[in-house]
């Protein structure tokens, strides 16, 4: 096995649950064994720092979530690349609940990008209640639009 410099995680007990913060690349070298041993009654997984995930990483994650079938799991701060996997592979979410996800906006004038964190109450049933456009703070002139199709983006929440 190759020592894995690409992937890091932090485990922090918080009240009745344990927060796991994932960082970096999830691929064939990623091992979630250590995460199984937390013994926490509930898990909160923070995906904000995940920079890439390939099919081997998805497979490992799906198996990990399956093994924790009886543990309540919450996904928070899911970046667009994780949202895309959740839409493509429903078992990536499995029995977990998504509590928040980032939506990418892009300015039509200066192409500046902004990620806006949306809580579950605003995308709960797959009918997102989010602004279609935002004013661009970077150039002050353009309008920022969602980089993607909002309904397709939140398809995982249906």
């Amino acid at each position, binding site marked *: *096995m*190759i020592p894995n410099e690409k992937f890091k995680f932090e485990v922090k007990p918080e009240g009745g649950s344990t927060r796991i913060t994932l960082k970096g*690349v999830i691929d*064939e*070298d990623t091992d979630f064994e250590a995460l199984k041993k937390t013994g926490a009654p509930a898990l909160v997984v923070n995906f904000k720092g995940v920079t*890439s995930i*390939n*099919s*081997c990483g*998805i*497979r490992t994650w*799906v*198996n990990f979530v*399956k093994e924790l079938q009886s543990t309540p799991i919450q996904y928070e701060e899911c970046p*667009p*690349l994780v949202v*895309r996997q959740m839409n*493509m*592979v429903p*078992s990536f979410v499995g029995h977990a609940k998504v509590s928040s996800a980032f939506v*990418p906006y*892009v300015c039509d004038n200066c*192409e*500046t*990008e902004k990620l806006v964190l949306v809580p579950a109450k605003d995308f709960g049933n797959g009918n997102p209640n989010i602004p279609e456009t935002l004013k661009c703070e970077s150039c002050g002139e353009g309008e920022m639009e969602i*980089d*993607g*199709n909002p309904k*397709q983006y939140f398809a995982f929440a249906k």
Partner: protein
Amino acid sequence: MTKLPLPNNPAGLVTVNTGVLSKAEAVLLVDKGCRYIFSTELGKVDPVVKMTHAALLQGAVPLFPWENGEKEEMTLGGSRERQAISEAVVARCKLERKRFLREKVQSVLEELMTNVLFHAYRNADGKEKYARRQEAVLASRELIAIRFSSTAQGIYLSVKDQAGSLKFEEMARALSRCYSGHSQIENKESGAGLGTYMIFDAVTHLKVVSAPGQSTEIACWIADQRSFDNQHFSFSFFERSTK
């Protein structure tokens, strides 16, 4: 749905299929053995469909419009080089500020490279030569050619191995399993199924040119568009005779 028949085809399965399809519907056709599928509202008068049918009647492989133009080329020599290649493609195609397209391109390229590295090369016993979870360093006769280019409309990517081991049936099985709900994602250490599905799902056009025992090239076009357009996508799997 229109089917343009081809000769030497008693079962009638090798046809050029056209109609307006979802990706899942296209996969149902692939699963039935259809190697040439074009989703287009023009049906059989679509120039690309006509071009494909004509080429197949002559035993040739057509060059699609999205394959035209100059390409840049890089060589993949092992699993550790994937990230550098991915970063180079992003930089050369100026995708830094285009998250949606960039992440799609990076994901497709990653799956193309990973599939080829770990599945294309086999030992004499038929087992895969390079195991996942171990570093793969290819021999010089196994080097993989990566070609790419970008236009305002999208990105072209192609990955070509020197094995020629990919079979249409394998690809069809991988796609149909992933699309049919009973996913085969779990409990598999190897297997190119999920990666193939991720590629097919993300791209607009996918073309495989297999020369059995010599090479397999998987070329694709990723349109710079934000939502799925079921009037323009294609899947084709050509086999060159190597006799």
